[in-house]
């Protein structure tokens, strides 16, 4: 597990260094994910240990958003002032983008099987 964790951190570190060196507008961990993905394709898959650790971390992905979410307490005043535009925009835009993306991808990939038919 420590070996796998080290590997994840090394890829993140390389990602962070690349982002700064090349002045990319993308966060380091995303570049690290891309590099690890390419590495896995070249090496034809992750080892047992890496797979296990990754699944362990991703199972509790939700937990990792809690500290940033708690930052809501810094913005109570603005949220109280602009709650209507912000909440309507959030709800409608989120629903709309899920619907648009899902319908489009469904159409583009299931043309041959007939629309609306489940796989």
């Amino acid at each position, binding site marked *: 597990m420590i070996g796998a964790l080290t590997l994840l951190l090394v890829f993140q570190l390389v990602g962070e260094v690349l982002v700064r060196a090349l002045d990319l507008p993308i966060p380091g961990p995303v570049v690290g994910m891309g590099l690890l993905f390419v590495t896995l394709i070249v090496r034809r898959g992750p080892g047992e240990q890496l797979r296990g650790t990754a699944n362990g971390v991703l199972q509790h992905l939700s937990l990792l958003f809690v500290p940033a979410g708690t930052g809501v307490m810094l913005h109570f005043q603005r949220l109280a002032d602009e709650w209507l535009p912000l909440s309507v925009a959030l709800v409608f835009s*989120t629903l709309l983008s899920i619907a648009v993306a899902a319908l489009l991808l469904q159409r583009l990939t299931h043309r041959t099987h007939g629309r609306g038919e489940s796989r």
Partner: protein
Amino acid sequence: MTPVLGEIWVYLSATPLLGLTLTLLAYQAALWLYRRANHHPLLNPVMLAVIMLVLVLSVTDTSYETYFDGAQFVHFLLGPATVALAIPLYAQWGRLRSMLVPLLATLVAGSLTAALSAVGIAALLGASRESMMSLAPKSVTTPIAMGVAERLGGLPSLTAVLVICTGILGAICARYVYRMLRIDDHAVRGFAIGIASHGIGTARAFQVSEQAGAFAALGMGLNGLLTAASLPWVLPWLERLTG
């Protein structure tokens, strides 16, 4: 408070231990509730944990900065967790390669819908420019969104909150949208929620199936790249266009 309790409190509030432990306790409690309610999407664990933490911090008059001294250790793990998304992604490589063009077309449409519809609705309802620019990158993962908001002239810390709200909303509502539109394919479901509600949507998709999770991770990663590259010039251009 008795003097002894007061002393203990002074000690506790000065170490990172308290913020860290509180975060984990709140999450455990939230998970317990979520499981008791049979994984009902309305009881999203991130939302429950945040509500509990805000209540505890307000009641004890603890500042967010003090709390974050401890919670940053959890926050830090977002980095390696993002890197780890490469593994489920690789597991879906075969299917992914076969639908590359539809995925890219969907990405562009979904990404623009997410950003422009949010800004448009907020503008119609009279939001401030700062809020609109903080809202624009709400569908992508927190670190990218904060960087984009800063470039656009929004408030990065407000963006972090709006991003989390978007994630929770997507995680709660997606299943109803899919049921209504009769979308059954887990690859399609995952990709759409990943585009619209990033990591929290992805976390939710992993609870449904590994395939949904992998496609959500892909949607999240790609939308992060596209949004970072496109919004900083699309929005100023639109602003000039609409005066």
